[in-house]
């Protein structure tokens, strides 16, 4: 039997189970019930096809291992977890939070082509396919990304890969107020971060284009090694257009905002977010009920 079939047997069909990857985002979605059985997804890069720009990888593989394989062919997957040595592909997809380059490279959900998961009934189910364009049937792949393992336990996935940018430069400059043009007049920057006092920008692409864009920023800007330390107290998500208003009540240095994206990292804890509208909550409940009628997958976690 293959690793996936073994995983399905391990998950079984009866008792409550939770799946653990590197436990780097274990608290997202609330605590799982303490006495559930813990399982782990299989690991390993199954097949990297650089010329198709995709990779088949088991969900338990760490990001560092995957990145190492892709790197040898000059490729990457821009998932960018904070702790790549521990974070697993399955965990990153289940939580669905992108890293700092989302502005240019897009959300986690855009990089996933196929997911093979174990259903609540213990069956292996396939969603999507290993091709870059596909509208054959309903889009379960998007549904599963960010579902916190409450609809199915991810076993193996196919991701898009991308050529590594030829050049990348971080620059930083002063910005007491939010710039009127959030993206500073740059063409598709990879990241624009703001802490209420300074800005950090990541430019990626052809070396001389990167240099020209850096020049465009002006003399007040300086080269820097990378982004500032990202505050880990809390995380907010807001429409990018709301960041300016929100920041009025928050002192510089107490946060780091991803401009153009709307993710804000806080040094202190984040206030609980408002509940979904009742009609949306009802839809979420119905989805959960169809996929996991007995509530055995990651009980306690709430994606809804």
């Amino acid at each position: 039997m293959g690793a996936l079939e073994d995983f399905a047997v391990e998950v079984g069909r009866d008792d409550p189970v939770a799946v653990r990857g590197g436990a780097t985002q274990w608290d997202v979605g609330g605590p799982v019930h303490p006495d559930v059985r813990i399982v782990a997804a299989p690991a390993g890069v199954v097949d990297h096809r650089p010329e198709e720009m995709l990779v088949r990888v088991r969900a338990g593989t760490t990001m560092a291992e995957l990145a190492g394989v892709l790197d040898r062919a000059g490729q990457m997957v821009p998932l960018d977890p904070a702790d790549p040595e521990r974070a697993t592909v399955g965990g990153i997809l289940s939580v669905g939070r992108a890293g700092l380059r989302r502005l240019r490279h897009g959300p986690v959900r855009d990089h996933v082509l196929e997911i093979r998961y174990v259903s609540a009934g213990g069956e292996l189910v396939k969603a999507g396919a290993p091709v870059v364009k596909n509208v054959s049937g309903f889009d379960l792949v998007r549904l599963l990304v960010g579902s916190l393992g409450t609809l199915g336990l991810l076993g193996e996935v196919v991701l898009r890969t991308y050529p590594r940018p030829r050049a990348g430069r971080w620059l930083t400059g002063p910005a007491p107020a939010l710039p009127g043009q959030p993206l500073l007049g740059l063409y598709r920057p990879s990241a624009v971060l703001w802490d209420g006092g300074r800005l950090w920008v990541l430019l990626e692409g052809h070396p001389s284009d990167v240099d020209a864009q850096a020049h465009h920023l002006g003399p007040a800007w300086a080269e820097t090694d990378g982004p500032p330390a990202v505050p880990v107290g809390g995380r907010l998500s807001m429409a990018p257009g709301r960041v300016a208003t929100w920041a009025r009540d928050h002192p510089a240095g107490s946060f780091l905002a991803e401009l153009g994206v709307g993710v804000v990292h806080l040094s202190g804890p984040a206030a609980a977010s408002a509940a979904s509208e009742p009609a949306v909550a009802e839809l979420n409940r119905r989805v959960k009920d169809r996929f996991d009628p007995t509530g055995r997958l990651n009980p306690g976690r709430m994606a809804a």
Partner: protein
Amino acid sequence: MTLVSELVAALDEERVRSGGLERALYNRDASIMEGRAGVVCFPLTTPEVQAVVKVAAAHGRAVVPRGAGTGLAGGAVPVGAEGHEPVVVVTTRMNRVLEVDAHNAVAWVQPGVLNLDLSRHVAPLGLHFAPDPSSQQACSIGGNVANNSGGPHCLAYGVTTAHVLAMDVVLADGVLVRLGGLEPEGLGYDLRGAFVGSEGTMGVAVAVAVRLTPLPPALRTLLIGFPTVEAAAETVTAVIGAGIIPAAMEMMDARITKAVEEYVHAGFPADAAAVLLIEVDGLEDGVAAAAAEVIELAQARGATSVRMAADAAERDLLWKGRKSAFGAVARIAPDYYLHDTVVPRTRLAEILARVYELADANGVAVMNVFHAGDGNLHPLFLFDRRRPGELDRVKAAGDQLIRVCIEAGGVLSGEHGIGLEKRDYMPLLFSPADLLAQDSLRDAFDPSRLFNPDKVIPSGSRCGDLQSVPPGVWI
């Protein structure tokens, strides 16, 4: 009250059509399938859509959402037994751009806004809506969302789902919900993502928030001729293999190139066995380097001609050639059947050879014009439906095409969707458990199966019965 009088009370007389001739206009989409519309409604507002849905549900009638009717998989074809024909909800009059936020590059639009109209509307702001189906002059944003449509420039920019942030949807009980949102990490499941590509089976989208993309500061448009189809296909593979993702990489074979040239006189090379239309975009230096590398890769594979558009007018002309392909075919053949499958893009040369073979074996003329960069084939089979047997041969060729692509590790559809056309082929790609999971999603949205019944997922009994279509549908 009768169904029609209740609908008239909810809308008005002019926007509820129940006469035979008027309904007949809505029996079809752009595919060759035909159903029967019960009553056709043209709401203007969200409350009107809610009212229509409630009235239809109360009368036990299905609801078929419909945009511009350019779908090619029968998605908007109304299916229902005699006396129970669906209510068709046409969104073409809900065609306003509601709000544009240029700073944050988002717009809220009504579903009936046409794809190209949206891009034209925001062009003065330096923005555009990146998905650009070849039908973009005619198709609606609501249809794009429902089919998760693609287009030439989706190679680099991604298909519709990557460009839709949120939508307001009327569900089967008439309730309005907002799926997704402008915030990047919403609560709950990605219901937005689940709805995109749902082909009208989960609700009616009544407003859509789209992400707008900056117009590129630099671009190069190349038209490259090749002595063989294989050389063109190998160039596609080589470009991707070299780590270049062009904005678009389209292929046209000699037959379609000739038809296009006679139609639009764009100066496409008449002697080439295949041409590639390749566009690279971004910032100037990267674009110049990528264009030079593409030309080199093409010449190393025997390219016989390379033409680079000198200005916007020439670029428009080259794209006009590509986008007029279907119009050009319509001039030379009474009917055509446009297919849509995807294969791994490293296997294009081999699969194209099979496509010509199977067309020949069935005695069917085929032309190829397609999104080569992502392996998305669009063989066009020509026929004349008045000649007995021709359509059957086209269908046989289509059936073989689908099987060849699935065997090669491909899929049933890259952008047109499953609809009725490929519903009964779904078991070729998915196991019963896979299909059940997809059906569960639909069931969560629409437990009463009010919307667009009989589409996308084969019903259990029909699984083994390929090629069947529901009663009341004519092909």
